[in-house]
């Protein structure tokens, strides 16, 4: 529900959110920005949303180029589309609490695939904006930032916006080119042309991650040879048991290379690119032998990554790291060094959590950020607006059942394994309270009342099982796992007994 703004000056017939002071500012109208705007509205927190784009959708207004999305929405499960349990099978719809606005994507997909097309995804985001009555001031580009005694000032093409709290959901879609000599002869992934224009071209793709494979997949029938090059071998998600490698959807070029079909995987570092009469020469050094290797090609595309367009945020105290210039944040997505600045959407991937066995969470993907956004907004609400999360009381005999039900079907735990958890605590007065969905790292590392957090985890052998973290005397001393189950059902007699014995002394 969007609350009324008594003093808002709407330009006559014009866009909402004129420059001025707001309680919260949200920058960006992709999935990240729209999701947090919804959560803010749901809590009744006034906020302005500005976006440089002419309409909603974020990166899905342009990418991916050739393929459908990597995230699925399965229309046919045994579950009602408006149920929470269904969220596990619909990675793409933004989350709403109102049943009639949940799972918008199945209704928009044409049924030819469980993966939406780019256009279907964009349409889904646009529909969410309409249904939820979200307001965005479009074509308002953030250009710079200042810090004042009472917060931040965002300088935009429409004027200045003031707030103590700013949530940046600006994505990680600014092309990153390596500083290789001759890189000007290469195009970036972002500038890829129509597939047919690559017919009969010898193509060299710098990068063996998803974007490089996506290009190679889309150009398999046009370009030949296609060489994919980077210092280390491609890592496939099916081998990593996570989304961290090249996804199964883009594996065709890998198979092609294995079978000698005209695609080549080259493990080498790119030293320079030179242009000559017949095309381009890419000078590389092989990783295995350290010997030079030169590829003669017609075109080079650098699928070499992206950075977050965070402009001058370092000047107001935001510390950045890594190739993509991501911010260092706490477990609720607030900048570790600039209070009041938060990051929503895919940038949340920089909060790595426990990352057990090296398996990353899904914070950078469409299904993970939706839940992180709720933790972010709850943190804003508590810290800046005095709105505390409810902690409903739980009867002792219901604790085990409630936790196991979450482990079996809570979408937060399944989409963000070993990253989000369901926690239940015992207060000093002896009452047992449901903490709801929490950051697992936040729970295990902070002191607090006795209690337990349960999540779902995968180990390095691909075994999926519930994991339990018990807090005693302010400390979580280790982890415990419950038995795995072929159909991931964890609420039977065996699991009840296991969990009961683990938490008997704190919540029994």
């Amino acid at each position, binding site marked *: 529900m969007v609350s009324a703004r008594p003093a808002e000056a709407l330009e006559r017939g014009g866009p909402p959110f004129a420059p001025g002071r707001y309680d919260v500012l949200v920058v960006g109208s992709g999935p990240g920005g729209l999701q947090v705007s919804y959560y803010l509205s749901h809590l009744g927190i006034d906020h302005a949303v500005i976006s440089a784009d002419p309409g909603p959708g974020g990166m899905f207004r342009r990418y991916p180029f050739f393929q459908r999305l990597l995230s699925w929405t399965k229309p046919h499960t045994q579950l009602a589309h408006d149920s929470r349990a269904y969220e596990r099978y619909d990675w793409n719809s933004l989350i709403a609490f109102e049943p009639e606005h949940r799972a918008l994507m199945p209704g928009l997909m044409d049924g030819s695939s469980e993966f939406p097309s780019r256009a279907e995804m964009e349409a889904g985001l646009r529909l969410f904006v309409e249904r939820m009555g979200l307001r965005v001031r479009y074509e308002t580009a953030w250009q710079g930032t200042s810090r004042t005694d009472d917060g931040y000032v965002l300088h935009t093409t429409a004027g200045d916006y003031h707030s103590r709290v700013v949530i940046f959901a600006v994505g990680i879609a600014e092309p990153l080119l*390596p*500083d290789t000599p001759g890189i000007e002869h290469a195009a970036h992934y972002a500038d890829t042309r129509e597939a047919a224009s690559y017919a009969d071209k010898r193509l060299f793709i710098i990068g063996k991650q998803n974007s490089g494979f996506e290009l190679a997949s889309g150009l398999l029938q046009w370009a030949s040879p296609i060489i994919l090059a*980077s*210092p*280390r071998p491609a890592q496939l998600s099916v081998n990593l048991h996570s989304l961290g490698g090249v996804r199964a959807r883009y594996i065709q070029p890998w198979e092609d290379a294995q079978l000698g079909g005209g695609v080549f995987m080259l*493990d080498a*570092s790119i030293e320079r690119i030179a242009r000559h009469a017949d095309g381009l020469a890419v000078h590389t*050094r*092989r*990783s295995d032998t*350290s010997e030079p290797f030169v590829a003669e090609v017609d075109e080079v595309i650098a699928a070499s990554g992206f950075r977050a367009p965070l402009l001058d945020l370092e000047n107001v105290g935001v*510390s950045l*790291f*890594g*190739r993509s210039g*991501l911010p*260092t*944040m*706490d477990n609720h997505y607030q900048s*570790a*060094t600039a209070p009041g600045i938060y990051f929503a959407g895919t940038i949340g991937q*920089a909060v*790595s959590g*426990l*990352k*057990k*066995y*090296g*398996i990353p969470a899904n914070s950078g993907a469409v299904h993970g950020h939706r839940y992180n956004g709720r933790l972010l907004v709850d943190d804003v609400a508590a810290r800046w607006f005095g709105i505390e999360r409810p902690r409903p009381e739980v009867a002792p005999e219901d604790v085990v059942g409630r936790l196991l039900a979450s482990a079996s079907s809570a979408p937060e735990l399944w989409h963000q394994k*070993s990253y989000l958890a369901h926690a239940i605590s015992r207060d000093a007065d002896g009452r047992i309270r449901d903490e709801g969905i929490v950051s697992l*790292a936040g729970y*295990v*590392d902070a002191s607090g009342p006795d209690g337990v957090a349960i999540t779902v*985890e995968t*180990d*390095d052998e691909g075994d999926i099982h519930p994991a339990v973290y018990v807090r005693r005397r302010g400390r979580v*001393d*280790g*982890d415990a*796992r419950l038995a795995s189950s072929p159909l991931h059902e964890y609420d039977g007699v065996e699991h009840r007994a296991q969990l009961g014995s683990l938490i008997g002394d704190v919540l029994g």
Partner: protein
Amino acid sequence: MYQAEILDALAGLALFSDLDRPQLEAVAHTMSEEAFPAGQRILRQGFSGSGFFIILDGEVSVRVDGADVARLAKGDFFGEISLLLGEPPVADVVTLAPVKALQLAGPDLRAFLLTYPAVMYRMLQSVSRRLERANRRG
């Protein structure tokens, strides 16, 4: 630029002193860069699924049952003993200042050392030295 900074940082580590530039690049790509705010736990006593870390910037405290037993800083590494033994860490590692580190997934350490025997030998020397020091203190 950024990549060169990481490579220079790695080149300065005793652990990688026998690797050439292309090998360092391959190593840099195998590890992921992470950043942690001050006061953040990176390694957790008693938890499964831990990893291997090399500190690029900042300082950490090694704590056993809450007591500070050592400090580590830029160039130091930790987490390998637990991984070599297949046991959970026996200490917490907590950042004292904002830390940038390279992280290698636990299951990958063995293959990493077998791929770079020179690095394994340097690690052997490091563990030997620490064992000698521990024996002397005993």
